[in-house]
């Protein structure tokens, strides 16, 4: 089972929930940080790293001696990454999405595969759990192709040793967030009951409900703000899987890099129960039932 922890609004507690779930998870687990722009899970799980590799995107490299300036490549490219002007070909590697179209299309075989570094993938052990993270290269704009490579590495790790995975997704509801949750079996939405939290939560629900995956809500900082989120979840049939109280001591523990499940026996119990409810959600609901109940 693959569980994504997503949110819409940033800073609602995705990483807090992921780290605590990983700490109390029953059974073999890979904890994955897919918030590749700003990965934070390692700050809480403190993994012992075992390896890392650079990840690349395939981009075209021009052999000018073969080019006839026919313009087929620039006509195909939807991302303005290659441009033919008279007897001049310009490539803009940072614009390339790595579709491979120009290389396959060039009638003169003047384009061959090169590469652009997207970031670094690293892995290790965090207690009983295996750990995997991606860290986007600073200045790199495109996180989705990099996230696909991190997920491919996750596939290898899960093939080598069966078990579950929990993915810490990036904030937002556009392509990076959808890319993070698209291959998971269950989506856990972490929110806070404030107007900002609620507005972005509705966007997240709109973005993720069409995927037809079982979804549930964790309300963080419960007691802060208002009740809108609860009404919305009831209307949409989204189960509230856990509530984490609004409590300055929790915020202070987080600010020291502590795992919230370790703060008190009650909180530990909250996350053990959350883990159980996530499993139930995956097992009991055929895709779509929960989201559209």
């Amino acid at each position, binding site marked *: 089972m693959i569980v994504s922890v997503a949110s*819409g*609004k*940033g*800073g*609602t507690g995705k*990483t807090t929930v992921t780290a605590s779930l990983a700490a109390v998870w029953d059974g073999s687990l890979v904890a994955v940080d897919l918030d590749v*722009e*700003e990965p*934070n899970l390692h*700050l*809480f799980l403190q993994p012992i790293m075992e390896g890392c590799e650079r990840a690349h995107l395939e981009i075209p490299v021009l052999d000018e001696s073969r080019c006839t300036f026919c313009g087929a490549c620039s006509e*195909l490219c*939807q*991302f303005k990454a290659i441009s033919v002007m008279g007897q001049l070909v310009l490539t803009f590697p940072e614009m390339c*999405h*790595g*579709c*491979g*179209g120009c290389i*396959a*299309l060039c009638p003169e075989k003047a384009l061959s595969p090169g590469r652009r570094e997207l970031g670094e993938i690293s892995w290790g052990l965090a207690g009983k759990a295996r750990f995997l993270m991606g860290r*986007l290269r*600073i*200045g790199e*704009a*495109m*996180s989705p192709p990099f996230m*696909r490579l991190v997920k491919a590495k996750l596939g290898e790790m899960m093939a080598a040793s069966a078990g579950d995975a929990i993915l810490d997704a*990036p*904030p*937002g*509801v*556009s*392509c*990076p*967030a*959808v890319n993070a949750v*698209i291959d998971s079996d269950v989506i856990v939405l972490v929110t806070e009951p*404030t*107007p*900002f939290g609620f*507005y*972005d939560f509705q*966007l*997240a629900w*709109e*973005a*993720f409900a*069409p*995927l037809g995956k079982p979804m549930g809500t964790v309300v963080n900082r419960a007691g*802060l*703000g*208002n009740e809108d989120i609860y009404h919305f979840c009831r209307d949409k049939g989204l189960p509230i899987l856990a509530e984490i109280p609004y409590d*300055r001591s929790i*915020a*202070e523990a*987080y*600010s*020291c*890099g502590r795992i919230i499940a370790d703060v008190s026996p009650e909180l530990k119990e909250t996350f053990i129960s959350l883990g159980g409810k996530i499993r139930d959600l995956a097992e009991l609901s055929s895709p779509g039932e929960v989201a559209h109940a």
Partner: protein
Amino acid sequence: MREIVIISGKGGTGKTSITGAFAHLARNKVICDLDVDAPDLHLLLRPSRERVEEFHSGYEAQIDKDECTRCGVCASMCRFGAIRETEDGVSVDPLRCEGCKVCVAFCPEDAVRFPQKHCGQWYVSSTRFGPMVHAQLFPGAENSGRLVMVLKQQAKEMARARGLDLVLCDGAPGIGCPVISSLSGTHLAVAVTEPTPSGRHDLERVAELCTHFQIAFAVIINKHDLNMDEASRIEAFCREKGYPLLARLPHDPIVTRAMIDGLVVTELPETDFSRELIRTWKRVEDLAHLGP
């Protein structure tokens, strides 16, 4: 004309609440929400829309099942795993389709249609603090970077046309495509951080991004009393790198209260938080060379 963008790296540090207060305090400005993916500034400013524009960007492959012979060329060439073959025929998963046109170009039957994608809307609005340009990317859509560019362009044109000196922008979290777009051509990036390991880690990355693009960078520590040690580490980082530290703001429930009332904090009765925020805005003005 100057352009200031409020960013954070980590989400949830208080960017939007602080931008809202700055929108109240700043004179002669256009307000612009560049977090097109999960915009929240409108919840504080309650804009009335004066103009609505559709945002189309990129294209999306769609297979015409009558023309398709299921030869499999498209699926074999698609790098994004977007082509699915089921009993009903071959189809494209719109959430995975990158709009690269490779399947269109290589389909031997010309069976792939390629319509433009409708990705969102953008708005020109008026607020009690002045004009505002903002947008909503449709949930799950892509190309937020291009929409950010559209908004910035609009905001600048409006400022020029109305003789205003400032474009004040609320940015997105992270360091990827929308953030990079929001930084382009900006005079000053103000990062709002919090004294937590994530806040500091993400601040360091977003600072490096601004250095990479040679954008002037300054820092506000929000909720600084949550962890004084962590706050000192952030201060040391700023000193070492030469980033101006504009403010240490206390953790204050006034921020949530204002949000629930649809107001910005400087509209509520004064607290230490709002007093410090008023001083902070003066420092931002000085740093951005905004004359009185």
